[in-house]
């Protein structure tokens, strides 16, 4: 029996609980946080505005009749243009077992990639033991006192991902309407030749403004102030 065949399997890494941080005053943190909150709010608005744009683009991409993958679109509205792309689903978003079954049923090919290679690694507990590593370097088998768990086995993981062939076949088989959301990601990449930030701020202000809430907050401030006087 070799130390490789007896190698123990590496446990999956565990997340350690973070220690509670001490409070410390940092100048500028409030401004940073306000801008962060503003960007997050605008990000949420932006995402909801993208739905209609993507719905319309999606319809254009799934309506092609020539059985070929369509080229990117160039959208425009007022001063804005955008490259609208039907991208291959990322390998970072592997297909689920149900989706693989669906693609097999529909005759759509996909790739199988090694997400994590099966390999042997040096146990980190001994990785800095220079003397030990020196002996190993000379003769792995001849080393006396070599720990049984010196070599650990990392198990391999494969995943199924979308390939270019998947998309070409989807179009060739005229199944874009049914499968485009499984195989592709719609990306809208807008550009403005001369961004009018004043107009952008006016739009953001209009979207974010709520007079009733503002009035309520002023009223609450007044009530608190008068309560303090009493």
């Amino acid at each position: 029996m070799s130390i490789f065949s007896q190698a123990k399997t590496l446990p999956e890494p565990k997340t350690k609980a973070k220690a509670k941080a001490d409070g410390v005053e940092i100048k500028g943190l409030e401004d940073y946080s306000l801008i962060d909150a503003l960007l997050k709010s605008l990000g949420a608005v932006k995402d909801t505005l993208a739905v209609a744009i993507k719905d319309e683009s999606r319809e254009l991409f799934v309506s092609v009749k020539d059985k070929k993958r369509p080229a990117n679109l160039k959208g425009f509205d007022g001063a804005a243009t955008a490259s609208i792309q039907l991208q291959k689903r990322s390998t970072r978003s592997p297909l689920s077992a149900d989706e693989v079954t669906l693609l097999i049923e529909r005759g759509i090919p996909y790739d199988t990639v090694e997400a994590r290679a099966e390999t042997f690694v040096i146990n980190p507990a001994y990785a800095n033991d220079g003397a030990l590593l020196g002996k190993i370097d000379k003769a792995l088998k001849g080393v006396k006192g070599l720990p049984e768990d010196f070599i650990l086995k990392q198990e391999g993981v494969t995943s199924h991902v979308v390939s270019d062939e998947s998309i070409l076949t989807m179009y060739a088989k005229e199944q874009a309407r049914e499968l485009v959301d499984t195989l592709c990601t719609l990306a809208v990449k807008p550009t403005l030749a001369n961004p009018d930030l004043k107009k952008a701020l006016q739009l953001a202000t209009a979207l974010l403004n709520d007079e009733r809430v503002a009035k309520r907050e002023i009223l609450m401030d007044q009530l608190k102030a008068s309560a303090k006087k009493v």
Partner: protein
Amino acid sequence: MYLWPPRPEKAIPASLIRSFEARGFVGQRKKNGTLQVISVAADGGVVFRTRRNEPNKAWTPLPDMGKYFASFPDSVFIGELLHSKHASVKNTIFLFDVLRYLGADLVGTVLRERLDLLKKLHVLSPNIQILETYDKDLTGLFHSLSEPTDEGLVLKDPKATLRDCKRDGLNTGWQVKVRRPHKNYGF
């Protein structure tokens, strides 16, 4: 087959509710529980899973619940289970969406159609309720929330089309959440 539930990922402050309402969004209370994907097989077998496609660890469905959902073969309902987080409410599911109904795949339908479908369900058990949908004064509704089980609101576009639920994350863009102030989070 597990279907990933539509749910909001992005949060907005309460001051934005009005602008979303002006754009036609509707509101539902965001219950502070555990999201449930209730899948009913064609033979009436019912499976309750969390939003991460995992079984519930600290809850066993009441027999009546399984019996009720079994009367809708080949369907998938989405709801929020209140059981573990609040002592005052146990074994109660608030349904707020339906992705498949009696064999019909509802991908491609708009939210308003699915909400109308939910409204027509006859629910005889107090343990299963249909979450009410509000069309107006959503800011007022938000500020009136007082129940500890109400985490806030979810604002949804009733004209939004349901996209493929076999893939997670395709139905997040048409909804946002608004949380009530809490010591752990808030704008």
